[in-house]
């Protein structure tokens, strides 16, 4: 694969976003439908950059309460304790299980933040029409999209713990408001990764101008 390879759009062709079949557009203005799977064909997703930005900003806003508010409220023998994600990491670390602390830190704090930064980085590159290292950028995008489906780990753990640990009146666990925001971060980031059109990474500045709707 070479960076100098002709892109489909350059060749006057359009690829299907669903089944990736390369076909000739019905018209230039309106590429029509994929002859194989019947999905609508677009040269580039409409408003891809704008949509992705909006979702990333929304996710970033939610990222703050997700970390500031407690995700779990534990009531054990009459004493109530609320833990934020970072609080949980610190608790795990101080209680000696640093591998667990590391997992939670990576999965719940670093990955969501990393995804947001990665997507923002890609968007800025595309917007400035200077994609420096297209291969690395493309790989970055693939990783972001792949990780997305595993990001709800925290929410799942929360849900499990809340459902299982209900030993009233000795001990009970309730979800905190932070978990809702955390879920919002994950869902919005996944949607942002979906709306981003990776084909933009390969477009030359001239094409971008031409393809921009």
């Amino acid at each position, binding site marked *: 694969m070479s960076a100098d390879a002709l892109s489909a*759009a*350059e060749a*006057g062709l359009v690829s299907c976003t669903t089944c990736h079949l390369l076909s000739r557009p019905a018209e*230039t*203005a309106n590429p029509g439908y994929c002859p194989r799977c019947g999905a609508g064909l677009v*040269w580039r997703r409409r*408003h891809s950059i*704008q*949509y992705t930005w*909006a*979702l990333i*900003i*929304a*996710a970033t*806003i*939610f990222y*703050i*309460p997700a970390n500031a*508010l407690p995700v779990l409220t534990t009531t054990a*023998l*009459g*004493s109530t*304790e609320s833990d934020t994600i970072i609080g949980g990491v610190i608790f795990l670390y101080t209680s000696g299980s640093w591998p667990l602390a590391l997992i939670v830190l990576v999965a719940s704090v670093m990955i969501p933040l990393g995804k947001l930064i990665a997507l923002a980085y890609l968007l800025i590159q595309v917007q400035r029409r200077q994609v420096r290292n297209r291969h690395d950028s493309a790989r970055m995008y693939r990783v972001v999209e792949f990780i997305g489906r595993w990001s709800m780990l925290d929410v799942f753990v929360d849900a499990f713990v809340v459902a299982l640990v209900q030993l009233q009146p000795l001990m009970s666990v309730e979800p905190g*408001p932070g978990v809702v*925001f955390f879920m*919002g971060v994950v869902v*919005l980031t996944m949607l942002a990764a979906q709306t981003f059109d990776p084909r933009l990474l390969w477009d*030359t500045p*001239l*094409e971008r*101008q*031409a*393809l*921009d*709707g």
Partner: protein
Amino acid sequence: MAEPPRSGEIPQATAVRPKRGRISVIWIIPILAALVAIGIAVQRILSVGPTIIIVFTAAEGIEAGKTFIRYKDVNIGQVTAVRLTNEYKQVEVTARIEKHAAGLMVQDAKFWVVRPQISLTGVSGLSTLLSGNYIGFEPGASEQSANIFIGLDVAPVVAGQAGREFILNSGDVGSLSIGSPIYYRRLPVGQVTATDLQPDGKAVQIRVFVRAPYDKYVVTGTRFWNASGIDVSVGADGINVRTESVVAILVGGISFDVPPFMTPGEAAPEDTVFTLYDDRVAAMKAPDPLAKHYVLKFNESVRGLAVGAPVTFLGLPAGEVTKVGLAFDVVKGDIRPRVEAVFYPERVIELASAKEAALAEAFRQDEQKRRAFIRRMVEERGLRAQLKSGSLITGQLYVGIDYHPNAPKVKLDFSQESPEFPTVPSDLADLEAKVGGIVDKIDRMPLEAIGNDLKKNLESLDQTLTSATKLITNADEQVLPGLKASIEDLRRTLGAVERAMNNADASLLQSSAPAQQDLRNALQEFTRAARSLRILMDELERQPSSVIRGKTDTGGK
């Protein structure tokens, strides 16, 4: 959309400005997110109450983020930080107070660490065993808000209860301690809240708290006394045991009441100072405004006479001994016991009957009249003081004032401050002489001779017994054979009776026996009679009228 450009071609400028920067609907999402986040932030900021600092000497069980400040079992704040302060001598606890409780943070509010306490007076703070220690809170009365407080080392005994505090002055604390109960008519109504020395260090101040509504019984005339432990007093009037409750025995206690001679005044205001009496008797004792001191000189041992021993007038309590000492008579070369006693004329006057009330009042008022009366009693009737034995076991003595008409005449001299009251020798010497006489008589008894006689008697009794034994042996040999024969006869008779009975059996029970036959006939007869009766009953059921009208033909049968 324009024609797809070819590489290297110079793009064609467009005549119309390309439509750019259209704002998509998607921007609603971040705007909504921002609104939600801001909303939550505003709510959090608004709900945050003031942050206060409490300085404790020790922060036992206080943890940041886990310890709550509780008032009436409601969490009103949470500890956010604990750190050392003041050159590492004290602990500074920072706590965030909930907004709704912000108004309670006034200057004289009290904070203390609640921990489980098990003492004789009760168990408190048990809930902390499960939930961990917490900081207790009691609001103050001040209007001035504050945010730095000094925590109490000990929980106030009476947190959040209505009632009043009073101050008691006492020589020492005795067995009282913080938490010792206060009793009113043996009902626990309060507690000791503090014990402290007075500034000069010569007495103690005890702060007591009496709960509402019982605090209204503490009035201006109330007297408090120490009800600690078991009060056992052995005096000339016997053994007296008094206690308030088992708790009071163990941890001490204070009782209060209004003495009967006082008219209860108005409810005493907060922090009224009272005297703490040593015991109930001291507290309930009426102040005797009329106290007349007399000196008694005895000619005998006063062993057993203690200060406080009663002085009785014709057997009724009228005063007490205040001092037991010696009187030195240099001229005669004589030392005699000298007893000082106080006499309360009012106690005697009070006992006058209703008719003599006017007279009693006159005696109470007029000292000259009283003196004249006493002088007459002493000089004409022979009123004398005498040592008397209160208890033979303990040897306690008291002073009894009684009439001794045969006593030598004396003059009563009221000119001295403490007049000398004439005495007579006690009866104790007589008693001793009598007992001595009895002992002498016992001594003179011919105990030895009696013993010898007794011995002889016993010997003859022995002989008698021996003869008796012989007699019985003879009886055995001579009487028994006859008895044996008699028994043999009896047995034969019984055999005959048995045979007779057997015959009777046969005549009655065999089917052919005549008696049996008769019985069978009788039973058959009875069966027939029963059958007829049944028929009659059936008939009556069908035709009840047949009793009156006789049997009708249609009636069947």
